[in-house]
């Protein structure tokens, strides 16, 4: 303490002197934690995918690309890969359109806004596993309240009804409806996140620019498409990138809603990796399946990095 007031030419030079030691020292524990528990397991995943590891036996041998070959020939894997992309893309398009409408609405002031905000955020702020339980009942094969509404409106359950004479639609029992349900729940879940991100972007647009455009005679459509959307583009990119990450790698919705069924029609990479790697105990093939998540995530990370760099400059 006593040397603080500087024998090295003033207190400031002393601070920078000590910082060279202190800075790495303060950051090291966090870096170490991440390297050991994220970095190392990542390489372990690659290693497993090239081995014959199982949950049962502690020993493992190098087998080359055998797992990848087996995985690629597996029709369930191909279906999972396709579904992962379909679920992600469709739900992100829906989320973006709906979030845009909702964010523009929330930009206005109205009574009870705090309650509306709380309700709209619920799918994101409440644990997703618990929110999905609500959907399990809403989509139940017998008691589905959605089916009840459709029956009430005469669209279902009577002869000549538009949706069929059966009393239920069997949301999670028919492949196309099960896929629709998974997409619906993903959209429902990510809408709040995209909305608040877009809202933050919208409030950041200076009112003067919009006013000036109005004075110059730009109608609300022109203001929307020629000023707001172009100015929002970077922030929309962020919303979409996060949405892609959360949908592409998610297992909760599929695991709880359909378990990948019926007959694998809603299987995704993450759930297939879980069923193979943990439930069937084939760590090697499970790891190989999960690794297919990586290229997409690396692409997203690269885009984010570019985005981060650009905002730093401006």
């Amino acid at each position, binding site marked *: *303490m006593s040397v*603080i*007031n500087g024998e090295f030419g003033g207190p*400031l030079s002393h*601070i920078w002197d000590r910082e060279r030691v202190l800075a790495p020292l*303060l*950051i090291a*524990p*966090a*870096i170490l*934690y*991440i390297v050991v528990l*994220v970095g190392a*397991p990542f390489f*372990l*995943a690659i290693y*497993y995918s090239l081995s014959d*590891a199982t*949950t049962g036996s502690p020993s493992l041998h190098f087998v080359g690309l055998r797992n990848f070959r087996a995985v690629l020939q597996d029709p369930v894997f191909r279906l999972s890969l396709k579904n992962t992309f379909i679920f992600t893309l469709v739900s992100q398009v829906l989320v973006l359109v*709906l979030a845009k409408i*909702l964010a523009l*609405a929330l930009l206005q002031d*109205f009574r009870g806004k705090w309650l*509306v905000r709380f309700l*709209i*955020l619920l*799918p994101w*702020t409440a*644990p997703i*596993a*618990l929110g999905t*339980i*609500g*959907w399990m009942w*809403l989509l139940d094969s*017998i008691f589905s*309240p959605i089916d*009840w509404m459709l029956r009430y409106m005469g669209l279902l359950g009577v002869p000549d009804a538009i949706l069929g004479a059966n*009393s239920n639609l069997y949301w999670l029992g028919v492949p196309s409806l099960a896929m629709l349900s998974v997409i619906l729940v993903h959209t*429902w879940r990510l*809408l709040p996140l995209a909305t*608040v*991100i877009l809202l*933050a972007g919208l409030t950041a647009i200076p009112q003067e620019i919009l006013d000036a455009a109005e004075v110059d005679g730009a109608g609300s459509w022109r203001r929307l498409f020629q000023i707001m959307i172009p100015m929002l583009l970077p922030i929309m990119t*962020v919303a979409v990138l996060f949405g892609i990450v959360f949908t592409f*790698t998610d*297992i*909760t919705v599929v*695991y709880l809603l359909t378990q990948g069924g019926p007959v694998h029609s809603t299987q995704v*990479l*993450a759930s297939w*990796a879980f069923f193979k790697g*943990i439930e069937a105990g084939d760590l090697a093939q*499970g790891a190989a399946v*999960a*690794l297919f*998540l990586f290229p997409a995530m690396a692409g*997203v990370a690269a885009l984010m*990095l570019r*985005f981060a760099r650009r905002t730093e400059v401006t």
Partner: protein
Amino acid sequence: MARLKQIGKRSALYGVVTFFALFSAFPFFWMVIASFKRDHDLYTLKNNPFFFSEPPTLEHLHHLFFDTLFVKYLINTVVVGIAVVAITLLLAVPAAYSLARWAGRWGENLGIGIFLTYLVPPTLLFIPLSRVIGVLGLQESLWSLILIYPTFTIPFCTWLLMGFFKSIPLDIEEQALVDGYSRVGAMVRIVLPLSISGLLTVVVFSFTLSMHEFIYALAFVSSSALKTVSIGVPTELIGEFFEWGPLMAGALIPSIPAAILYTLFLDRFIAGFTMGAIK
């Protein structure tokens, strides 16, 4: 005419927000009803599912709290949450401080690098980590979750705190150094008290994120007494008896406090998510 247009605009606005509020809250609205609905009412197909055709009951709540492990799940969730918050603060605060005050390209890149690890999905890591947990002898223990959850809370919290620390003027700290504080002393006594709201955000975020987590808990913990709510309610309550009333109450009760906490701090999370793109 202008007034009519105004009224039209207002009703369109109310229409839009009402629709979205109903859509978003629909499953939770349903949980509230199911939690208090008598079984007979619940399973009679002709009855309107959205209203009470028979008087409401507390039977399901009683069953949930006294006949299932629900309370144990709540306790486990809180225990894991508190431990994760502690580890996160202990590691993220110094790291963020160092990154915020460590000028230069290298520090910035390191900061972005740490943030990007937040994007490494648990679904890619749970297979090797399940083996690591096994080797460490932590399977069937809450310690497995306490050890692994900071891998996603530390990166994001470091990033969030970095922004907070950067907003505190360097002058205040330099003054403290002149007054005879050490660098660490200045951080603890000057910077941290000024960043209380940032630290609080980190506490809330780490807690709610560990409460939300699903895949690691699914892969590491299989004995029912050790589950957290996110995994205990959907796997055990269904497995045990498949009664919708208690299940819906079990899903609703933890959701509400989590949602309230998260909503209060949401704007700060978004500032972190958008990487300061909005100023």
